[in-house]
């Protein structure tokens, strides 16, 4: 699903965001992207949904070379990727329904399809009773669930989440992660950036460790469930 080969990312002014990153994520995998603040987690995710282009190396997402995509190609790719942010990024003046429906509207879905799919995902995430509410009337956890509903409503093959639980208390954080894990169980490839050790320990998935823009660890096996040493230091 994702391949990166010797990827560098430099920002204007020459600051290095990522350096010589090489890794692959298979279709259907669940991967945590971890590291301290400023390690490059967000930069790596931004590369994956085409918000920035690599300065060197190759990034392939669903077989597409991100460096060569035109603006409209990036738009088409984003219709196949669900993105979740720490700060939710919801439209304050739109209802919950409208916030979720925007994804399907942009994809050109019919009204009937939009109604059915939005209702279904909101029901699945326990938000059916909040359909007509504005985001400011919702709790932080509910707002993040709306953002997740927006990302999942079109059943994307890839979901990218950038610190999705960063603004939530621990109990709600687990609730949100369970929803994302559930999406993975349905076959979605998931990449979650987090530095929350509780989540890393609880879900025991593959961890890509970043430090100052470099990939310094790839813990490939489920240590919690399978036991033993299974990590690979890079």
């Amino acid at each position, binding site marked *: 699903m994702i391949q990166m080969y010797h990827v560098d990312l430099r920002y204007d002014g020459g600051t290095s965001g990522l350096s010589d990153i090489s890794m692959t994520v298979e279709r259907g995998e669940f991967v945590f992207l971890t590291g301290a603040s400023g390690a490059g987690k967000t930069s790596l995710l931004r590369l994956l*949904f*085409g*918000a920035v*282009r690599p300065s060197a190396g190759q990034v392939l997402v669903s077989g597409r070379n991100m460096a060569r995509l*035109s*603006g*409209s190609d*990036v*738009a*088409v*790719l*984003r*219709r196949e990727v669900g*993105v979740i942010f720490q700060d939710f*990024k*919801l*439209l*304050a*003046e739109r209802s919950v329904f409208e916030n979720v429906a*925007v*994804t399907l*509207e*942009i*994809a*050109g*879905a*019919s009204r009937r399809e939009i109604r059915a799919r939005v209702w279904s995902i909101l029901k699945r995430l326990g938000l059916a009773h909040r359909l007509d509410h504005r985001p400011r009337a919702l709790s932080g956890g509910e707002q993040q669930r709306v953002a997740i509903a*927006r990302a999942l409503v079109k059943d994307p093959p890839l979901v990218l989440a950038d610190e999705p639980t960063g603004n939530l208390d621990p109990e709600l954080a687990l609730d949100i992660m369970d929803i994302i894990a559930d999406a993975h169980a349905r076959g979605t490839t998931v990449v979650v950036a987090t530095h929350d050790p509780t989540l890393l320990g609880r879900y025991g998935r593959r961890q890509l460790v970043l430090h100052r823009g470099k990939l310094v660890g790839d813990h490939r096996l489920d240590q919690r469930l399978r036991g033993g040493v299974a990590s690979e230091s890079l």
Partner: protein
Amino acid sequence: MRNLRRLRTSLRSGLRGITGAPLVFALSVATMAAGMFLLSGYLLVVQNVRVVLASYGSDLSLVAFLGPASGSTQALAAQLRAMPGVADLQYVSPAEALERLRGDLGADGGILDGLGENPLPGSFEITLTPEARTPEGVRALAAELRRSDALSDVRYGEAWVESYARILRALEWVGAMLGVSLLLVLGVIVAGTVRLAVHTRADEIAIQRLVGAGGFLVRLPFLLEAAVQGALAAGLALALLGLLFRFGLPLVGEAMRLVLGVATPVFFGPFEIGSLLLFGTSLGLGSALLSLLRLEESA
């Protein structure tokens, strides 16, 4: 089908932009309407000044004097009548010319009695076709007539025509400068309001991009908003100008008669009104296009 639905979504977003912030939209329309009012008012003045100048132009005529070897007057008249720019001509015989001169001299007409032989030549008074009633048209016809061996001289009030031509040229220049300046100001106003709308809806744009809206779909609502804004502003400006023309002009009627002479001021016809509405719409669209050029494709 999906593309049509995307288009509908985008257009709905544009309408939402209008209804979502009605005050901002109304202020934008009012600002642009003020500019359009100035431009339309200016065009109305230009149109009426042209009518006045055209009425002066209708006075343009030529007098072609016959030479000694002019031959048949009727044949020459037919030849002149066939020339481009000639609407009609009237033959003035030497005797008629002398009578006119006597009339012009009034009480001093008696001095002509001493003339043994009438020294005045016969002439043709030529009136011009509407298309030829310009300084250039008069000059061209005079040059053509002067090439004829049958005519000894051609007069058309050169000094007056040249002054008239200078006034026309000056008006055209001043008009063009004013027109371009007003256009630029209007363009800047609309571009500014579109930028403001883009800034206000930056979050919406970011989210639309995030979920896969391409550049066209993101820009379309703003283009629609700007086009509606332009059309409404033009309509408002024309309505205000129409009211002013209808009820304000009679109050300054005497002064207008002094300025315009016999010509009656006229308001825009349906064609001009349609053109100005189309112009307002296009100006909105064009300015929006320019201000959206720098909207990032992928961010």
